[in-house]
């Protein structure tokens, strides 16, 4: 099988990730931050190093700003529901994943907030920024947007959006689900208030891991409370990060695997990974476009305006049928709406969905060439 569904989760993982997880199961089996015995302290030490690795990677002020959560969706829910106040307004973009849209819509339906979707203009960051500026209202309490669309690969100018938001004293949360490990994020330099990221995509960690990184987490209300191993005499949730958002036992094998994944990306460098994957996607784009048999919805997905993924359709064919045919030919891709109906609405594909292809650092040009050939073969049927 040639796996090109890396936008859903990367596969394979680097061997050092599974090695770190195995070591965690064998050597660090005690609950960290709960006791003072040797193995608990050694486990806590390993988790602390994972926080340091993540903080360095995202330019967070310190390791204590990194909370480990289950996935990016959980992190986004924690920020969105923790930041908004009744009667307030939220700005988001028109290409968001349901991890952002469903929490916003749930809050809207409960009468707690209103929200505005700012229009994204691919390749024109000034226009996108202007749309965000126009969306901000006097009662806007949060801006939450993706750094890159999981359907179209469109990159949003989050650094400029952050500067804009701060001029209006609006905190900003960035969904790095499709960008972490490919695009640089530096919280200190850009002033991003909250960064949410999955551990299992571009960071090459295991599934079931995610990151909530906050410059000042005490400003967020919590949606999950419970034991943190500290201040147990108090019935109030601790204010201090990271424990404020880590009630209950954390996923130590996953976190240590994620640490190994982040270290892998740091060694490779995001820049090289971005260049490698973008070259592959552009090669695919060129071949599909030259055939004249494939519907492509966006401009050539070149840096710096796109992250390396591509959505397409074949005329008169359902996207799920195309993905199924590709599966029969040994290619793993994802069809449908990709949990992002607003992004598909933006691209005019809400009714049909698309076939999405996304390489990883391990994908080679020959695999992408074989994929292009397979797509064109299906198109001719």
């Amino acid at each position, binding site marked *: 099988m040639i796996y090109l569904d890396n936008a859903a989760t990367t596969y394979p993982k680097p061997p050092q990730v599974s090695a770190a997880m195995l070591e965690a199961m064998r050597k660090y089996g005690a609950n960290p931050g709960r006791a003072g015995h040797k193995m608990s302290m050694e486990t806590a030490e390993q988790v*602390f190093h994972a926080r340091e690795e993540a903080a360095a990677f995202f330019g967070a002020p310190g390791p204590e700003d990194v909370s480990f959560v289950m996935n990016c969706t959980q992190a986004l829910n924690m920020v969105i529901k923790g930041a908004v106040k009744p009667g307030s307004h939220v700005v988001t973009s028109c290409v968001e994943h349901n991890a952002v849209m469903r929490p916003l819509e749930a809050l809207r339906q409960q009468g707690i907030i209103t929200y505005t979707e700012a229009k994204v203009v691919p390749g024109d960051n000034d226009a996108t920024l202007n749309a965000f500026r126009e969306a901000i209202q006097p009662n806007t309490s949060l801006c939450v947007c993706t750094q890159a669309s999981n359907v179209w690969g469109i990159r949003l100018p989050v650094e400029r959006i952050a500067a804009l938001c701060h001029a209006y004293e609006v905190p900003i949360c960035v969904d790095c689900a499709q960008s972490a490990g490919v695009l640089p994020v530096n919280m200190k330099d850009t002033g991003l208030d909250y960064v949410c990221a999955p551990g299992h995509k571009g960071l090459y960690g295991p599934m079931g891991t995610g990151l909530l990184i906050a410059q000042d987490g005490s400003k967020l209300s919590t949606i999950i409370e419970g034991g943190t191993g*500290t201040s147990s005499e108090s019935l109030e949730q*601790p204010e*201090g990060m990271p424990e404020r958002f880590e009630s209950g036992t954390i996923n130590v094998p996953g976190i240590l695997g994620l640490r190994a994944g982040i270290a892998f990306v740091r060694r490779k460098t995001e820049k090289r990974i971005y260049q490698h994957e973008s070259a592959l996607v552009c090669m695919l784009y060129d071949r599909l476009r030259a055939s004249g048999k494939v519907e492509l919805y966006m401009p050539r997905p070149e840096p710096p305006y796109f992250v390396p993924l591509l959505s397409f359709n074949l005329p008169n064919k359902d996207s799920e049928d195309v993905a199924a045919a590709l599966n029969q030919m040994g290619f793993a891709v994802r069809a449908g709406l990709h949990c992002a109906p607003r992004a598909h609405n933006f691209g005019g594909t809400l009714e049909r969905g698309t076939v999405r292809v996304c390489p990883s650092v391990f994908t080679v040009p020959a695999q992408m060439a074989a994929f292009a050939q397979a797509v064109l073969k299906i198109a001719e049927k």
Partner: protein
Amino acid sequence: MKQLIIVGSVTYAMKGREILFNHGIRAYIERLPRTPDTPGCGYGIYVPERADEAEQILREADIHVLGRKEW
């Protein structure tokens, strides 16, 4: 008499220990003892020497120091 600087969590204890090491101060993490005036369930940084200086360094580094314990 053992000097323990009490902090909010094991994460802050580890960060604090690294900061003190960088200042040439030996520091070790310990679980808080349960006593009538401290309910336990927390962590502290044991500093064999230069405890006052260590506490000052931690405060200047924005480590939330909850207090000191001697026993």
